[in-house]
């Protein structure tokens, strides 16, 4: 039987391997839609998710093409950088029906919260959450989807 030992990548990045995935040595991959890779919020998300896996970022125009390229474990959408949130969530749901979709916003409103939930998002969070609370929330979303 193959040993689930840590690879150099895992040791370097303190990645937890998910035994439930198709390839047992593939790390979790998360997709951040909308935020620029160099933005401070993207960096915070990446840092908080680092113990769990890798974070990839794409603009919303490339999200649907990107989703088929990997087995993403969670999709995070930066609401401020997406033009048509309802359509994006709806389209993502068609190709990734069981992947948790989280919408993060700097300016939450009850109308947009309702819209994202009614179109199939799994959670709606504030970008103003501090790093620790953000990490806790994302881990909770990930764990309840499993």
């Amino acid at each position, binding site marked *: 039987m193959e040993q689930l030992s840590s690879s150099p990548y895992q040791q370097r990045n303190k990645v937890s391997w998910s035994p439930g995935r198709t390839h047992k040595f593939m790390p979790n991959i998360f997709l951040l839609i909308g935020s620029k890779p160099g933005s401070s919020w993207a960096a915070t998300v990446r840092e908080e998710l680092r113990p769990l896996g890798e974070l990839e970022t794409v603009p919303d125009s490339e999200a649907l093409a990107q989703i088929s390229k990997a087995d993403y474990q969670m999709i995070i959408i930066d609401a401020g950088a997406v033009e048509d949130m309802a359509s994006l969530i709806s389209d993502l749901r068609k190709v990734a029906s069981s992947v948790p979709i989280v919408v993060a916003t700097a300016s939450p409103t009850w109308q947009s919260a309702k819209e994202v*939930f009614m179109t199939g998002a799994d959670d709606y969070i504030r970008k103003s959450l501090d790093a620790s609370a953000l990490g806790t929330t994302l881990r909770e979303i990930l764990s309840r989807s499993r």
Partner: protein
Amino acid sequence: MQRLKILLVDDNEDFLKIATEFLELKGYAVFPTTDLAEGRRLLEEDSFAVAFLDINFDLQDNHDKRGLALAIDTISTSSVPKVIMTVYGRADYVRESLLPRWRKGGAAVDFLHKENGLQQMVESIERIVQRAHVFLSYADPDRVRVADLYGKLQMSGFLPWMDKMELDAGEDWEMAVRNVMRKTDFVVVCLSAGSVDHRGFFQTEIRLALQILDEQPPGKIFLIPARLEECEHPRLGSLHRVDLFNPDGYDRLVRALKRN
């Protein structure tokens, strides 16, 4: 045609009165209450198509979340679809109301702001009420119990079909049954100790339902055996059944009918 039953739970008596009058004018049977405990009791004991819940009960000030907590707790009471209706348009209230797919009992199905008027209640009811057609198959000795189920399903927003309720004198009964079963969304086969070996068209209905089940796409729920009492039917043993004689039996049936 029986009117759909709507439960209104709101501690604002003025709103309750206006909303009740409005929904009754729209043709619904409305059951208003200002008492959340009474609302919960009604939810557990009766069948409603939709329940509207306010979220600020027992409110000391506008930032008190106890009302929200009570309403969220109430969401998990019974399988009746719940709509949160409030004057507080806050994103965190929406999140608490609509988020918890993982929470036992599920989430509210809609969130309405009172400032948007009463017509949105009707639109919400129309969206929610799943007018799925449900064919009730049964043997004649169980007619009274199945008629009770017919009424409850109608109150829950389904369109049940039962030969005794729908067929007119002189109509070709067998052909009508076959036609309806071909078009229906679900067939619920009501089983009792007396019906499982009952000779007659009931067994033909089961055979026909099994044939139609074979034509359904994988995973689609079509045929649901519903036991009225302890019994076994040799042809339906492989299908997941609901036991209507259990306290949660009807709720389980409603959940199954909403699965597709």
